[in-house]
């Protein structure tokens, strides 16, 4: 299987490469993921959402924050020529909100995903590298965050932070990123730690240590490059979970009312009574978009996992 061997080479190889080689490796990985139908679906969908995030502002017929967009004579109306996705409870164009929503959902998902990956890698490397009581304490924390019921914890934390919204960069959206990052790092830590435990005993680490390299140097130059492939593969899943998490927290009214993410549009629709009025055009596009977008990340993750799992490959 040509696909898997290349992906595996990318996942397990890459020891402190120069930038050009890394870029080539990344292109090859993307191409090999795209060769599988599931992977192609994922990549195309993600590319589409990225495009929508970049162009959404320019394409949107209305700015939902401007007073001109309010049109109370045409409230809660279904799709029509004037409003392709219908209107909301204030007569505003829902297509515009949908197009703008891509940007917020993407940015929040990526920011929270990257932050989780960074926290997860740092904690995992420290736990695996130092061992002893550091490892035991960090693993305890990690296990705790893995089993904790996510929704009650995230919701409690976000609610407690609401008063500080002005002091946190990004306001309420920033709080959502922060909460998702705090609750999302544990999975990465577990995987990274396991990898570091075996890396720590390898010759190149031994050699660096005998030559007097500091702990920080070894972790930075010898351990980190070797765990990065796993971190990348794993962050695909974390971004997916963060996009879902953003939709969840927005549904509790914790999002920024002035920014339109797919999650907040879903929340607005629910609050405006879209269910009882049968206003499917209000909830279907954002809900389906979140589902497809998350599914795309899972699909890419699944292709990477299938390629990397030795048992699946042996078949």
């Amino acid at each position: 299987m040509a696909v898997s061997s290349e992906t595996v080479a990318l996942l397990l190889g890459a020891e402190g490469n120069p930038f050009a080689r890394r870029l080539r490796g990344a292109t090859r990985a993307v191409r090999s993921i795209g060769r599988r139908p599931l992977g192609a679906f994922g990549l195309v969908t993600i590319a589409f959402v990225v495009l929508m995030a970049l162009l959404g502002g320019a394409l949107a017929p209305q700015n939902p924050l401007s007073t001109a967009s309010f049109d109370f004579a045409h409230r809660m109306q279904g799709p029509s020529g004037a409003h392709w996705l219908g209107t909301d409870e204030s007569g505003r164009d829902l297509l515009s909100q949908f197009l703008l929503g891509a940007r917020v959902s993407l940015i929040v998902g990526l920011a929270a995903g990257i932050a989780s990956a960074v926290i997860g890698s740092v904690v995992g490397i420290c736990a695996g590298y130092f061992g002893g009581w550091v490892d035991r304490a960090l693993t305890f924390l990690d296990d705790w965050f893995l089993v904790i019921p996510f929704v009650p914890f995230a919701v409690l934390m976000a609610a407690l932070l609401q008063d500080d919204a002005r002091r946190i960069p990004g306001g309420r959206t920033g709080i959502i990123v922060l909460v998702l990052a705090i609750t999302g790092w544990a999975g990465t830590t577990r995987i990274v730690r396991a990898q570091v435990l075996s890396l720590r005993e390898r010759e190149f680490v031994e050699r660096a240590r005998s030559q007097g390299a500091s702990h920080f140097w070894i972790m930075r130059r010898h351990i980190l490059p070797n765990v990065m492939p796993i971190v990348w593969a794993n962050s695909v899943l974390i971004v997916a979970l963060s996009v879902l998490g953003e939709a969840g927290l927005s549904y509790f009214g914790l999002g920024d009312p002035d920014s339109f993410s797919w999650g907040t549009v879903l929340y607005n629709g629910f609050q405006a009574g879209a269910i009882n009025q049968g206003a499917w055009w209000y909830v279907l596009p954002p809900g389906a978009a979140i589902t497809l977008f998350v599914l795309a990340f899972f699909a890419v993750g699944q292709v990477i996992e299938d390629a990397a799992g030795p048992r699946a490959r042996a078949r």
Partner: protein
Amino acid sequence: MMRLIAEKVTLALVTLAFVLTLNFFLFRAVGDPRNDLLRVPHMPAAERTHLIHERGLDRSLLDQYGIYVRNTLSGQLETSYHAGRPVTDVIGEALPNTLILALPATLLAALLGTWIGILSARRRGSAADGALTGASLTLYSMPEQFLAIAVVLVFSIWLKAFPSQLSEEPGSNAQGLSHVWDVTQHAVLPVLTLTASILASWSLIMRSSFSEAMHSDYMTTARAIGLSPRRAVLRHAVPNALLPVIALTAISLGYVVGGVIFIESVFSWPGIGQLTYDALLNRDLPVLQGVFLLTSAAVIFLNLLADLVIIALDPRVRAT
């Protein structure tokens, strides 16, 4: 083996202590509880001081912590800002309603999910596997509130097949069997929605753990010594593949709690989820804290239980 059990129990207790402490400091690190408590406008200064004193908020942090731990362990939580009643009572009333949804849904999802997982693992790579895994992944990717909204729109607004609101007919004072029937009718949609939203956790885990078991050395051995394929699967692959499912069923309580919060709020089902949703809209922090404490304690307890079950079932673990 006794040492292993003792270790697990100790760990669970330490984790519980950690949750208790975190719950206390989370509340105090972010914002001042004196301000949270006193959201009443035009409150006289004397009343204010009295309330602060009554709750011990004017004492040292360590004293407050002591009072908090003692109260919590004796089942005494704070007072709900919104309902004006003890959080313990408010949660106690909501809990049975949540269990009506959560227990059948968890059972259904665990059985159905395990079965689907085995089914797709045995035909790995086939069209059937593709469809089942695709469906599982789609359900997993769907925001629970969106799934619930879609279900209500289709089944109760358009098809009018089931009621979508509350747990019983409004104003009903039916007793006995007719009350049970009433509640059952109202529970059908939320239970099925919850089942669908958590099903994928089981089916996806079972798929990977079962196909791993099928390709393991002991299955090769079982075939080599001439066991029939059926016997080999039932006696060797299934028990091994089920171990992660047991662990998952315990951990899944976290997902169940999450799912139930979204689904109850869409269906206006008067349980813990609806309580949480309302508490958020009213900024009723003590209730949120209580829900967090309760669900965390339940998850820790169930994890301990799962660990003990695995110790009892798995001879490899028992031997250590």
